[in-house]
């Protein structure tokens, strides 16, 4: 984000991501190496790869939580700004819920961006997360799946144009995973750009429109989901899809 790059194509749609020459070092060790990437402004992109491939670092850099060591990230042709951050939302693998009730967690996010219709939106979000009957329960006493559904609803409370999800279903049971994937599809259909980190092949197949595959900090492959899962081009992706460990 050190300099601005002019993007070709989609003009000023801030859901359109362009990454140029992205590098990142942690404690002198290179964890992301020269990544170039262009994403369309619609759909669900799965960022996949083995543990330690750099997926979580990448998503945090794209969201502006981390400053990259080199290269540029631009949305709709412009570098990340605080205003842009306000139109994005992020759910990590273990969400940090406020020490308040379920409803108060949602209200906190709702009042960040709007002043009106809070209670209508609150009811809608509670219904979306299937937590209407637990609105007054302390958020941190919810089960893991409920907490993750609440975190997703809270992220959506700010009406994001881009939604980042980092392994949100990694520790959930199938029912909760299905509930969350259903919401993901729905918000994507409503026009929210979704970038989700996952190492669950099944999830990639179920929800992704395209797949960004990282291998040891490098972008090994970026292709439509159908192509990726049926005929991966790179050797690393092929190994990954076949369930082999690729070093």
């Amino acid at each position: 984000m050190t300099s601005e790059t002019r993007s070709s194509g989609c003009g000023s749609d801030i859901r359109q991501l362009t990454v140029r020459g992205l590098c990142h070092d942690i404690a002198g060790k290179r964890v992301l190496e020269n990544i170039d990437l262009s994403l369309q402004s619609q759909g669900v992109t799965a960022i996949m790869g083995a543990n330690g491939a750099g997926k979580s670092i990448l998503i945090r850099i794209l969201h502006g939580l981390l400053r990259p060591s080199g290269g540029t990230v631009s949305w709709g042709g412009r570098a990340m700004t605080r205003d842009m951050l306000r139109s994005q939302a992020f759910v990590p693998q273990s969400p940090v819920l406020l020490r308040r009730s379920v409803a108060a967690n949602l209200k906190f996010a709702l009042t960040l961006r709007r002043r009106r219709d809070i209670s209508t939106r609150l009811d809608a979000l509670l219904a979306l997360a299937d937590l209407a009957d637990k609105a007054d329960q302390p958020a941190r006493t919810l089960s893991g799946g409920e907490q993750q559904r609440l975190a997703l609803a809270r992220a959506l409370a700010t009406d994001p144009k881009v939604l980042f999800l980092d392994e949100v279903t990694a520790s959930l049971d199938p029912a909760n995973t299905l509930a969350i994937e259903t919401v993901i599809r729905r918000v994507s259909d409503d026009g929210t750009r979704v970038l989700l980190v996952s190492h669950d092949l099944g999830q990639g197949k179920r929800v992704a429109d395209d797949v960004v595959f990282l291998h040891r900090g490098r972008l090994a492959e970026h292709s439509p989901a159908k192509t990726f899962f049926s005929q991966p081009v790179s050797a690393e992706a092929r190994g990954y899809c076949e369930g082999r460990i690729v070093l």
Partner: protein
Amino acid sequence: MQDFADAFRLAFALLVQLDPNLVEIVALSLQVTLSAVALACAIGFPAGAALAAAKFPGRGAVIVILNTMMSLPPVVIGLLVYMLVSNAGPLGFMQLLYTPGAMIMAQTILVTPLVAALGRQVLADFHDEYDETFRSMAVPWRKQVAALLWDARYSLLTVALAGFGRAVAEVGAVIIVGGNIAHVTRVMTTAIALETSRGDLALALALGIVLLVVAVTINAAVMVLRASAQRLAYV
């Protein structure tokens, strides 16, 4: 020693009979100390939150100064406040010397560094936990501080309790700026000092026991509150 047995008997009698002098002294002690702790928390907690959440030049120095001020002797603070509010001092026009107001001021100065420093430690842990979430949600700075303070409320209650303990037990500051005037500025610790100087050690010790009973009651109330908060996973 005969005094021990006497002290416990006397303390029991004082508590059971609700001796009106004792009630007055205990009430003033609580009024002064609770006001001071409330003011200290109102100043110290936001300051602690700012120190926990914000990075600015000189922050380390401020933290060192705060931690140092925790060990300031009450009598020094008493002298400082005396020189401020004395008729010969800059705040003499406020006519605070030998009033509960001066005692509250002294104890506020005594407790604020403590609650700010301990509060900062508590809030720094909360900030570490919440930071990424808040940055991701682009929560404005002031709202971050408010949310940290609110979510840490039960942990901060323990900090406030530490402040209460330091204030309610000190005698050095309140005896100088309050003057230990009967029915006006006599609190439990200055009454204990007076009875000690009168050689009535049993009564002095009995008052000390009463002070402990009051402190135990408040500590227990906070414990119960925290326990219920823990059930709600709010701690």
